[in-house]
């Protein structure tokens, strides 16, 4: 099971690295069109006004005019740079309109009646919003500790519908509360014989999404599910950590 944990951590790390690398390429069309940051700007030598050379007559006047033009261009570039910095610092938060995907780690307990039952699971899913209405779904695969034998495999799918607070608090935080329904199965071995138990439940989940940069999110939520596993019912308190784009 430790291999699975490290695998999940590696996947999260890879996705976050890819997201940060891609985040640098995103931005408003205006910013992309202006090479105000980055190598393009740095590689352009700042135009310095040329010192007028002591020449006679018309040549001297032309050279003075050219130096004045170069000086104006440099000042204009510097002004554009300042405007771009200002825009980036006060980038207005556009309400998220499109679908969003996320990966998550979840931890909860499916009591096995013998002291075990802890589940560590990886999840992949997405969400969509219609104003304050929040819709989501995710699939999950996890390992459940069984105290008397080999660990079990948990596979389930969940759907969520609920409310999210808009506009974002402080331009970064969006709290939400949703109803969650889940269905799936627990696969394991009892007395060296394969066995599968149906799992289904209904409950509530509250959490918050934190915008890190551009469209990269990290989320934390706590959920409660009243679930039935096979012939027994259980209370599932679930902690979920999400990384999304």
């Amino acid at each position, binding site marked *: 099971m430790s291999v699975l944990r490290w695998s999940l951590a590696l996947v999260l790390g890879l996705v976050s690295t890819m997201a940060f690398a891609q985040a640098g390429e995103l931005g408003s069309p205006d910013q992309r069109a202006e090479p105000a940051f980055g190598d393009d700007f740095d590689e352009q030598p700042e135009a310095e006004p040329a010192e007028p050379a002591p020449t006679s007559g018309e040549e001297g006047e032309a050279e003075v005019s050219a130096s004045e033009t170069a000086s104006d261009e440099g000042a204009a570039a510097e002004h554009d740079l300042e405007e771009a910095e200002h825009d980036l610092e006060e980038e207005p938060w556009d309400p998220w309109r499109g679908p969003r995907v996320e990966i998550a780690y979840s931890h909860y307990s*499916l*009591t*096995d*009646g*013998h002291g075990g*039952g802890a589940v560590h699971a990886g999840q992949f899913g997405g969400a969509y919003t219609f*104003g*304050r*209405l929040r819709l989501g779904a995710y699939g999950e695969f996890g390992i459940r500790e069984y*105290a*008397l*034998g080999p660990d079990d495999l948990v596979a389930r799918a969940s759907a969520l519908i*609920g*409310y999210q607070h808009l506009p974002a608090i402080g331009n970064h935080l969006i709290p939400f*509360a949703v*109803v969650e329904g889940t269905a799936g199965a627990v696969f394991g071995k*009892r*007395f*060296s*014989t394969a*066995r599968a138990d149906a799992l289904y*439940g*209904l*409950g*509530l989940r509250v959490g918050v999404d934190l915008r890190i940069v551009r469209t990269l999110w990290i989320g934390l939520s706590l959920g*409660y*599910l*009243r*679930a*039935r*596993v*096979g*012939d*027994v*019912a*259980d209370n599932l308190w679930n902690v979920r950590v999400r990384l999304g784009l």
Partner: protein
Amino acid sequence: MSTRFGRSLGETGVSWVRAFLLVLIASVAACGPAAGDRYAGLEVFDDSEGLYRVRYLAPPWELDESESGGGALRLTIAAEGDSLGSMRPPKFELQAEGSSRSPQSLLEQEERRVVAAGHTMIAGPRALTVDSGVQGQEILSFDPVATRFNRYVALAGTGDTAVFRFSSTVDLDSLEVDDMIAGFDVAPFEGASP
């Protein structure tokens, strides 16, 4: 619901607070024995003569009704691809019956039988105690000819002794079998039958 929170949500035409409360009530009311109970999800077989009680997980255990009753019990787990009634020996088998002899006498007889049959003694005779506090003894052995493991358990009741015989192609000295034996009981039973 005319609260500030309800009004802010009213744009969608849904009373979210009521919906959340209904879901919470519905989810809490989900039926079924609690998963944390000691014997949650187990089937119970009470001897018709009132001597012993066996709790078992079904599936994979199956009750052989044709050979159970009248003081006897037979549970099996079929070999892969087989079903109850197959001619092949089951992967796991449990037989239970009552005896008027003492556990000590029964264990001594079983030990002599194991040695005489050329079986390998794995463990025992050793003492054991089940969840209800009833004490007994057991012997674990291996039959090299049939390649089967055997576990013989005798629990002392107030009068007779309940005898349980496990037979399997898998080692019976395991946590799962220990836990199943811990759920056995002999008369008088603790509490009502679940």
